[in-house]
């Protein structure tokens, strides 16, 4: 192990084994905070740790296929990178599978009934759609390889946003109120058992360090806890890496826009007065933003009762799938594990700033 990545004495999350201590991670968060990025990052970190991993999306958005640049995903689980499988599950498909399983009905018989079946599932029987999706997750989690090990070491689910996560996960209970007999009722109990076992399912909340998402995160954690669902770490997404602190800002401001322009001109580069003024404005806004985010980070770490891991805002000219590998390695570093692609891509100050918070440290 390289000296620079020595495991820290006390990271907030002790290694991959703690982060991936459940069979399934349900990734949620307020709309627009980067749930898909968070889920993909966790899956890549799991693959890097040698775990056979399945990424699942449940809302048919094709977020992962776009993120990874693959063909559209469907109900079939496919390995699209070594050790990483993907599937996009769908309520109608689950119905057909379910009926085939329990009633021996052949899919062909259903072709004529397709739209009707979908109508029925999504409208007439409230919660049945969510139950079918959660039921499919349960089926995947139950699956075993011939040698008895689980088919996937880890299942990462890009779940509905916090506003809909509770009804989604409580669909089994909701359905037992409406459906009083039959196999769905029996299965609902087993699904609930899985969801409330911390060794099998944990929820991971993704947030931005902004006021509304942070508040929704705290509310989401409280709601998930009262539904008896274990909470894994929170992922703070798009954390701004400090480029300069108040003292540096003060030094630059003393020279003003004209001073900055002269320094730049001395290197042979040309900078207009307008750009120099913009640069100083941005420097002000940046230090404010860093302070604002640090305040929210502390509030979150204090208030949510679970560790907070940071995903930095990457400021390269492009953002692509390679950047997800960097983020996965940034997560690894915060666990006190190796993260070679992060140490290569990010500068030392940026990494030090991230690790300071997680409790992990980089050796001298």
């Amino acid at each position: 192990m390289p000296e620079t990545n020595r495991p820290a004495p006390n990271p907030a999350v002790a290694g991959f084994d703690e982060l991936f201590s459940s069979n399934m991670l349900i990734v949620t968060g307020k709309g627009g905070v980067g749930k898909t990025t968070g889920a993909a990052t966790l899956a890549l970190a799991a693959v890097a740790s040698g775990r056979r991993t399945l990424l699942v999306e449940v809302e048919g958005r094709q977020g992962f296929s776009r993120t990874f640049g693959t063909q559209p995903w469907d109900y079939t689980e496919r390995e699209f990178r070594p050790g990483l499988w993907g599937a996009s599950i769908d309520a109608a498909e689950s119905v057909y599978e379910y009926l085939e399983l329990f009633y021996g009905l052949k899919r062909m018989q259903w072709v004529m009934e397709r739209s009707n079946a979908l109508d029925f599932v999504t409208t007439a029987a409230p919660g049945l759609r969510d139950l079918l999706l959660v039921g499919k997750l349960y089926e995947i989690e139950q699956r075993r390889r011939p040698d008895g090990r689980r088919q996937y070491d880890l299942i990462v689910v890009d779940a509905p946003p916090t506003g809909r996560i509770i009804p989604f996960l409580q669909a089994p209970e909701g359905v037992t109120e409406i459906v009083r007999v039959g196999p769905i009722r029996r299965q609902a109990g087993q699904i609930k058992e899985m969801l409330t076992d911390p060794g099998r399912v944990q929820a991971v909340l993704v947030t931005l360090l902004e006021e509304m998402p942070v508040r929704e995160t705290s509310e989401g954690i409280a709601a998930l806890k009262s539904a008896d669902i274990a909470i894994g770490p929170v992922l703070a997404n798009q954390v701004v890496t400090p480029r300069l602190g108040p003292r540096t800002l003060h030094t630059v401001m003393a020279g003003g826009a004209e001073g900055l322009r002269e320094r730049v001109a001395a290197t042979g580069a040309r900078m207009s007065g307008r750009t120099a003024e913009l640069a100083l404005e941005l420097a002000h806004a940046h230090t404010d933003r860093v302070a604002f985010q640090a305040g929210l980070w502390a509030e979150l770490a204090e208030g949510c009762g679970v560790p907070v891991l940071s995903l930095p805002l990457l400021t390269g000219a492009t953002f692509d799938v390679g950047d997800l590998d960097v983020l996965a390695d940034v997560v690894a570093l915060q666990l006190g594990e190796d993260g070679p692609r992060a140490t290569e891509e990010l500068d030392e100050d940026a990494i030090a700033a991230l690790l300071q918070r997680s409790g992990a440290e980089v050796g001298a």
Partner: protein
Amino acid sequence: MSRASLDEARTHTFADAITDAHILVATGAGGVGKTTTAAAIGLAAARAGRRTLVLTIDPARRLAQSMGLEGLGDEPALVELDDELPEGGELWAMMLDMQTTFDRLIDRHAGSAEEARSIKSNRIYRTLSSTLSGTQEYMAMERLHELHEAGEWDLLVIDTPPTRSALDFLDAPNRMTSFLEGRLLKLLLKPGMVAGRGIGKVVGAGATAFMRVAGRVTGMDLLQDLATFFRDFEGMYEGFKQRAQEVLELLRDPGSRFVVVTSPEPPPLREAKFFLERLEQEGLHAAGVVVNRIRPEVPQDPSDAALQRAVDELERADDPEGPASAAVLRLLGDVRNLAGRQRRDVTAALYSTNVDTLVEVPLLGGDIHDLDGLGVIATTLMTGRNG
């Protein structure tokens, strides 16, 4: 449409829509700032001398507080503004309650008070509004129609609820009426069943394979509730269908325009594009696109390469001003990269889409949660200029 016309769209503003439209609907993916945009439009219209009502669904608490909306019910309330407004300019706001709207719709169309009560106590009805996709949005449009009929406001501004897809409400009236017509579920209304002569027999005799299995899977009492629900609803289909038609006609009126709200990230931009295309197909009028929280464009002086050289050189300088200047330049490079990414994403998503107006609202310090912040956005939407 080509790049040139997207640039042209950037020179237009929402001033026309804010001063002439009777209805403005803010729509877009979750978390892009629809409520804030709707509130800023309302403020801009009030400043332009119009009596304006903003209907909102789930405002951020501090935004609601600043507008005096906290603890407010389903009725419009006047927002106290510090600004000196011209004659006639007023800003009103209200929070929508979907269930109340749905209940009122039932009361209006039910044949009798008894029938209305029976429907409202049916558990299928009680869960319908939350499970039938698009119903919430449709109820928002229904309330909009009701307020429009009342004729008390010059402009109504509404933000659509956060849903899986911002397009859902366009399909909602059709989906709702086809659900209420219940082509499939009409099977349940076969005479034997309505008379309550035993479900098992009827399902066994007449229903399709699907209904037989559905019955076995779900248990029969669900079907009984459905049967009751559809029987109660039977007399109301026509009223509902006609009402849905009126709502759609109101939305198709040239006085009703849609403001498509997005952030500069690819997923919400994709939704914005689909939404614009869908509006065109449906004969609805788009006022334009608002791109919220976009980073300021950084001029290309110095060039990226010159910037990097300057950073390297200044970092090695002996005095504290050198490395400090290098830090500012690195930050400038970061923002240039991010701003470039955002503008490429906006252009890539909206390329080949017909956009008349595109206003970019810059990323302000923190969240917008007061009237001053809304005032800044209101000015940007009216003039295209910031601050």
